[in-house]
């Protein structure tokens, strides 16, 4: 199999992950998107490992490490999101803007719309 296929597939997966982070307002979905990005990289690593015929299997080893770290990361992320949910009853990341220039300066203008991609696309994601 040519190396281009897995590389392109993983690039696409990565892009979907990036899109998810940029477009989703639900913190859990953002977390999932980050996972998607990491797994895209994993696919890439394994593919390169095979393609390069790496005697030390550096790519595969790295993949194992990434899986472990990703697990730790998601656990930690969920804990933080849970803590936020307890306090706010919401996991909408767009509502988290007490820390911002407009919030700090007390010259509260009209709330600005987030500059994100596809705001309309995920209206239904609102909890």
């Amino acid at each position, binding site marked *: 199999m040519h190396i281009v296929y897995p590389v392109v597939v993983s690039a696409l997966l990565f892009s979907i992950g990036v899109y998810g982070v940029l*477009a989703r*307002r639900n913190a859990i979905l953002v977390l999932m998107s980050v996972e998607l990005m990491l797994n895209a990289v994993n696919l890439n690593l394994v593919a390169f490992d095979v393609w390069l015929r790496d005697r030390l299997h550096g790519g595969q080893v790295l993949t194992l490490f990434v899986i472990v770290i990703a697990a730790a990361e998601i656990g930690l992320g969920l804990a933080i999101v849970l803590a936020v949910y307890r306090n706010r009853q919401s996991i909408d990341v767009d509502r988290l803007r007490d820390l*911002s*220039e407009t919030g700090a*300066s007390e010259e509260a203008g009209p709330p*600005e719309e*987030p500059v994100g991609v596809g705001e309309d696309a995920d209206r239904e994601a609102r909890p």
Partner: protein
Amino acid sequence: MEPAEIIQHSGGVIGASWLMIALPLLGAAVLLLGGRKTDKFGHLLGVAMAVASFVVAALAFIQLLGFAPGERRRGVELYDLIPGIAKVGLLVDPLSISFCLLITFVGSLIHIYSIGYMAHDPARRRFFAYLNLFVAAMLVLVLADNYLGLYVGWEGVGLASYLLIGFWQHKPTAATAAKKAFIVNRVGDFGLSIGIFTIFATFHSLSYQGVAEGMAKGGSIPATAIGLLLLLGACGKSAQLPLQSWLLDAMEGPTPVSALIHAATMVTAGVYLVVRSGPIFQATDTAQLVVTIVGVATLLAGAIIGTAKDDIKKALAGSTMSQIGYMMLAAGIGPAGYAFAIAHLITHGFFKADMFLGAGSVMHGMNDEVNMRKYGGLRKVMPITFVTFFIGYLAIIGFPLLSGYFTKDGIIETAMEHNAILGWLAVLGAGITGFYMSRLVFMTFFGKKRWEADAHPHESPAVMTWPLIILSIGAIVLGAFLILGNRFMLFLSPAVGRPEELPSFHPFSTTGLATLALVAVGVVFAWYRYGSAEVPGVAPRGSFLTAFARRDLYGDALNEALLMRPGQWLTRLAVYFDNRGVDGLVNSLAALIGGSSGRLRRIQTGYVRSYALSIFVGAAVLVGAWFVVGNL
């Protein structure tokens, strides 16, 4: 003879000579930061630090004497500040140690005197803190082994002087005088700083050693320009024409300050600068000539101002100007004059501090009255003050065998040899000195009582009279000690060089006799005018000349016309352009930055997704940039 090489030194008291600076600095820090808690013992701490500094200086002096004369220039490297450009180091050599001894010894005495003089001042602790600060800064000035260190000390003493002149801030005159001293000194400091920049640009070094080496190497060196710029700095600090006007006003400060800063030490910094920069000045006849002319002009101007002042401190201030003029004159002559300049500086430090402190003692007894027309006949009620003051008086007019006789005569003789016109003008100055100093003494201590009704003059306490006694002893013996046998010139020569032929002291030279005769004429004339005759309580109108002198030779008017008016015009012009152009520029720049800040802030929306987007866009740009640069 050329100056000796500087030998790097460590260990011993000389290695620890930084303690001289550190101790009074520590004292100032403790007193300023300690606040009211230190009120109780503040003055004692201040005195202790000054005395400790003197002890270090004396020990260093003793250690220095242990070396052979050619090895008495010891460089003490403290550390590298900026590698390759600025080292922080001290230079302990005969010149700097002479200053250290003078500063710390006279400084200690004045500290002690101030315990009594400032006893009733609520802010005595602050006064001692400033005095300690001054001593530390002055020692930095003379001990530094490079121009940068000298500049730091130079500004430090300027600051201390400013703080002390304006010490009694509640008096508007004091505040104004402090400001005036500060501003006039800025003019001088400007010259000094440009001079130092030029030195660095020329020699790529700021150390005295580097400059001396650079001068020896030769090449195109703007020595005249550097010399004149340094002289401008010296004129500001030493109250020489044309930057003399601040010194008279500076008498608004407490009298110990006038004695220490504006008579004995700080105002002589200009002479130190000229002598220390000897390698530069000796390479340029023009600058040396200008130095001597400035010296002579100031010695005459100061003397004339001294004749007309009724304020005892201002008369003494005029005298200080005049005496420093003598030193400048000698310093401008070159190696032949250096030893006399510094010797006169030292003896002057003693007898002028003695007289200032004596004046302070008089004021202390007379309810802070400074007008000599309200004194008279004080010798009976203040015997110790009178005797010590009289010794100082005899020393300054050059009464045979007292200090001034030897040192001033040395300067006059040297000047006469160098240039007859300068020499005769210096003789004339000595005559005027005889007149105005006699006038001052006669008006104060002799004649009838002209006291105010509520004045009850009394002798000052022992803590104030003992320093007077010690200083007057110095005023008697120091001159003979330094000059006879060329003792001081030989001591100083490793640092500044000396003429091939040592001068010899002739007690009955033409010049010496002429000087004595002229001084005698001055004294007799003063006796006729102020000793035997009645002194009017209000100053008579006097001739044009008197009015001229009373108004400081129109120094202020001259300043006003030459500097202030054009300065104001320039300022107005600058303000105009500033408002229109520069301010507009600055304001619009500020507005631009502020505005862009305001606009840029909007990227910081608080939306985590926007942040993620900015990261993504940044990554995309980075990738793109990499491709662009990679494919170039």
